[in-house]
């Protein structure tokens, strides 16, 4: 089959994106080909700006346009609490809830020796340094509840507890608005274990 080279390249590049297969890439490429020049320019600029305008906050490693991210810059946040998360996308997820008003710290992953990630590959040293400079009274661990996330939480707790800082971990249980009968057994089992007094 003969395909024009620019189209072929576009398909190849698009199919490198997560969740995009060859067929979807072809559909996207043909769609882009049909749209007007302005829209294409906007798309190109948006993608390019992502890389040039955004980088990591020097304090918490969240996404930032300047040295510090908007959350670290804000004067309205509770600066005695740090919520530790795996990736910047987790910050966005927690921010959407409007339930948390403290600061964050993005680890950039979790301990996973099998994939070559040990403690010094994560922003753990940077987190510990923050305790010297900032007045932190509580660290909230909000890592994914899988083996690697749990082990990382355990690791952080071991380092932080001796500093006389309160360490908590987010609760886990049945999703709000979810049906008990559709929740998986592990979730229900854990929710049973972590039940609370009424």
């Amino acid at each position, binding site marked *: 089959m003969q395909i024009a080279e620019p189209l072929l390249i576009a398909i190849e590049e698009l199919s490198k994106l997560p969740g995009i297969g060859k067929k979807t890439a072809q559909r996207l490429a043909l769609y882009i080909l049909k749209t007007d020049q302005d829209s294409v320019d906007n798309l190109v600029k948006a993608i390019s700006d992502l890389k040039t305008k955004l980088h990591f906050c020097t304090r918490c490693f969240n996404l930032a346009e300047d040295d510090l991210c908007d959350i670290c810059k804000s004067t309205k946040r509770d600066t005695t609490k740090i919520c530790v998360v795996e990736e910047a996308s987790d910050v966005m997820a927690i921010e959407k809830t409007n339930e948390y008003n403290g600061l964050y710290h993005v680890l950039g992953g979790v*301990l*996973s*020796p*099998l994939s070559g990630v*040990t*403690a*010094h590959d994560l922003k753990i040293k940077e987190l510990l340094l923050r305790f010297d400079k900032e007045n932190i009274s509580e660290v909230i661990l909000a890592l994914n509840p*899988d*083996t*690697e996330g*749990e*082990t990382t939480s*355990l*690791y952080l707790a*071991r*380092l932080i507890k001796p500093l006389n800082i309160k360490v908590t971990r987010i609760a886990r249980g049945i999703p709000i608005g979810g049906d008990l009968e559709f929740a998986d*057994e*592990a979730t229900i*089992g854990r929710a049973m274990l972590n039940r609370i007094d009424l």
Partner: protein
Amino acid sequence: MILSGLSLRNFRTHKNVTLNFSKELNYIVGGNGQGKTSLLEAAYYLCTTKSFNSKDIESVTFYENEFEIKGIFKDITEDKIRLIFSVPENRKYYFQNDKLISRSSQIIGRFPVVILTPSDHSITQGAPSERRKFIDSVISQASSSYLEVLLDYNKTLKHRAVVLNLLREKKTKQLETELDVWTAQLIAYGLDLINYRQNFLNNFNKYVLDSYHKIVEDKEVPKIEYFYLDGNETHDIKKKFDKLIFDKREEEIRRAINLVGPHKDDFVFTINKINLRTFGSQGQHKTFQTALRFAEFFYLKDTTGKTPIFLLDDVFGELDAYRAGKISNYLKEVGQAFITLTDFADFSFLAKEENDLIIKLDKGNISYA
């Protein structure tokens, strides 16, 4: 649940066959190489999407591009299952009522199956890993939480082995702490596993005893004894686990392997408290293996509430007529089962009933009796 029929295309020696089954016992008879075991394999494929003895590609008839297995499961409702394996794509397609199912987790456990094959000899005669595999597979089928813990435990073992290896190369404070937390995790999951296995065996031993006595009517008492953490005392397992792993720490680092935990457990099969593996006769081994599969069948039936289909490959081969007759009788309590027999055997021991079916395979021809 029963499998009421099976159609095979390009599946091993079966170019194109369609079979109907009895909802009770189906005796599959034929000489060597006529495709008796392939029929069991096909049924197993429909239940699990996998073969019990080979790779997918080995099941395709020579010079063909794909095999296809179709079957109908009847319960309260009817499910038409179709499985295709394509050689060029190296891919399996599984359809339930013409709907493509892509996740095997949606299939496994839906049509429960228990299989007894000659390779079961490794359960009683082979290495401890064979016995762990058997025990793990029975518990996992009945409890998905067990399977989750087992997977988490195995993952933790792999992570921890990497940390041990890093520590062997270079000792740092940071790596020591990392080892500590992986150890804590290993102990947490490990205690869960030990606890599950203990509870399971307390229950399962009754099934083994029951099944064994259906096959041999004497005073032999079979038992599965559980050995964990270098022994089987039950008081304060956690303390023992902590101590063992603490004592072995240096050796673990030196060899960069996990030396302590339920991945080292063994299950010792005994008859009248005597170790089967060391002192058992061939007949006792075969009887024990058979009893284990019957026990698995009834255990799964009771705990999951679903009746598995039972596949028995060449079960009568090494048994005397007395035991074979007993098994044949015992099978009546099962429900649907598929039993292969070589054609030169003397069938006089078979307690065949009206609804049972004898399916004869001869050079691609199929006849019923």
